[in-house]
């Protein structure tokens, strides 16, 4: 990577996402690697990677709201549910194609998210968090009681989407769908941050009084952040529903909301790359733990019974450790590693 001698002569050059040839090559290699992964991985791992990609879309959505705009939301689980159920009702009950249902699921979630974002004008911080918790409870209540539409506590069954004659029922096919949507999400979010709207979001987060004097309508941008964030959470919810091929209220519990908050905390607030790192970390954490326990079981067979308690314990411990030692999250750790090697071996 060339650090010096890299002079920009136009503003357009200065704005480019991949300004140097090195950066372009790096981006292409990363994308090719992601696309080639299913060729080398088993179906089980492709499934896990799909879950990582879906969680990343949702985490990026939440990060736009919490990381960029500074509005804490603990209703993500329910918004995933809104996306999942919308797609389930549209495809299974109404018989509409998945490709139409997916964007509609996003839009419906965006509308409901925007609606629950309205209290954000008056409420800040902890109080807003409690208000979004109300969203979680209300939405889940509606989902589990509106039997006629949602199938109540029994849930609904979905099927994998098809393109023409070709079905995406294999893990590999669905992986490609999710990864492409993730790439589009990353592109959109990256551009959003450096555009007028993204700057306004950051301004609302950092100093809302100064933002008002800059001519930013706080209410409009807060509700907009809720809507945009919920759109991606809704898309993630729909993708997840068609992956697991079932929706039921307990899949969208309060616990899921906390998991998503943990993703962006551990990954890095306000960072797109961090959202992905956090999503992968939280998704793979139980898998890593269980394989660790498999290894340890040879020595201590009783560990199997402790596993479920152990998982929650590690989950909590990881969040606390990150908050204390690296509030910038995994994204910040990654930056530090990059900085170290930029000057390596002459890092003085």
């Amino acid at each position, binding site marked *: 990577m060339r650090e010096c001698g890299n002079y920009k002569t136009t*503003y*357009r050059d200065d*704005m480019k996402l991949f300004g140097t040839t090195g950066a372009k090559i790096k981006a292409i290699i990363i994308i090719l690697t992601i696309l080639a992964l299913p060729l080398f991985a088993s179906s089980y791992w492709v499934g896990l990677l799909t879950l990582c990609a879906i969680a990343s879309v949702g985490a990026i959505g939440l990060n736009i709201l919490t990381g960029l705009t500074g509005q804490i939301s603990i209703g993500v689980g329910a918004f995933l549910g809104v996306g999942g159920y919308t797609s389930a009702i549209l495809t299974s009950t109404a018989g509409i194609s998945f490709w139409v249902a997916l964007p509609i699921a996003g839009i419906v979630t965006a509308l409901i998210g925007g609606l629950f974002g309205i209290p954000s004008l008056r409420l800040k911080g902890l109080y807003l968090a409690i208000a979004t918790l109300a969203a979680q409870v209300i939405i889940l209540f509606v989902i589990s009681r509106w039997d006629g539409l949602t199938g109540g506590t029994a849930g609904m069954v979905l099927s994998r989407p098809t393109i023409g004659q070709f079905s995406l029922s294999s893990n590999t096919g669905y992986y490609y769908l999710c990864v492409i949507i993730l790439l589009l999400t990353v592109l*959109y*979010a990256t*551009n*959003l941050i*450096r*555009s*007028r*709207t*993204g*700057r*306004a979001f*950051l*301004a609302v987060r*950092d*100093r809302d*009084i*100064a*933002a*008002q*004097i*800059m*001519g*930013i*309508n*706080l209410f409009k941008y807060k509700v*907009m952040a809720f809507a*945009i964030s919920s759109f991606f959470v809704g898309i993630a919810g729909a993708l997840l529903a068609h992956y697991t091929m079932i929706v039921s209220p307990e899949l969208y519990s309060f616990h899921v909301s906390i998991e998503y908050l943990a993703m962006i905390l551990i990954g890095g607030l306000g960072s797109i790359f961090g959202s992905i790192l956090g999503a992968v970390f939280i998704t793979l954490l139980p898998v890593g733990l269980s394989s660790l326990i498999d290894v340890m079981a040879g020595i201590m067979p009783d560990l199997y019974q402790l596993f479920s308690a152990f998982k929650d314990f590690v989950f909590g411990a990881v969040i606390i450790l990150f908050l204390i030692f690296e509030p910038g999250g995994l994204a910040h750790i990654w930056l530090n590693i990059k900085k170290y090697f930029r000057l390596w071996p002459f890092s003085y």
Partner: protein
Amino acid sequence: MGPILEIENVSLQFGGVKALDNVSYHIEKGEIFSLIGPNGAGKTSMLNCISGLYQPTGGSIRYKGQEIINMKPYNRTTLGIARAFQNIALFAHMSVLDNLKLGRHTLMKSGALSGGLYIGKSSNEEIEHRKKVEEVIEFLELQDIRHTPVGTLPYGLQKRVEVGRALALGPELILLDEPMAGMNSTEKDLMARFILDMHEVMEITVVLIEHDLGIVMNLSDHIAVLDFGKRIGFGTPEEIQKNPDVIKAYIGEETFI
């Protein structure tokens, strides 16, 4: 040239405290106007009323003849009223460039959809406004720090960026709340030069709050003096210097024993 801003009988009350008490004055278009007074006299409260952060309990504020007292703060920005804060209110994590671009928020149009796509109109708009922002950067001599996060800059430079963000709006009326507070004399001279240039080159009407009376007397066309929320003086620097009430407020009354 007629008055650009007319303040008439503005009062502001917090519970039992009268922060502003029937204050009236007017600001001519194209002048440098200073608002002075001892600490706690209500100068910043006055600016907050003009930019809309406080809602006066009575009176009227007219900008170019238009009543703005019930307007939301973000709508007043679109009229061309910019403001630099006393306690630096920059967005510390963003670069100087992004802070200045935020100053142009109301002049840009792209929304969440086109901004996220960042092609065509939206990216052209970014370039067009980048050019305007670069003019401000050149004017305030911020070239070498344009990509630096504001939070890492020294105090004097942050003050200058704060003024720059207000200038980026391309305002007709700029409210500067103690732009020279905490600066040494060299930095003060530099800032005074910027203020004069704003006034003469950019033809912006400047409202200045400042404690350094030497600078105020040198720069201003008109001055209003506040004390305990009351206007105790209004006029040219010469008139203010002779005004007995102002002398009393600043130096105290002569007492004979």
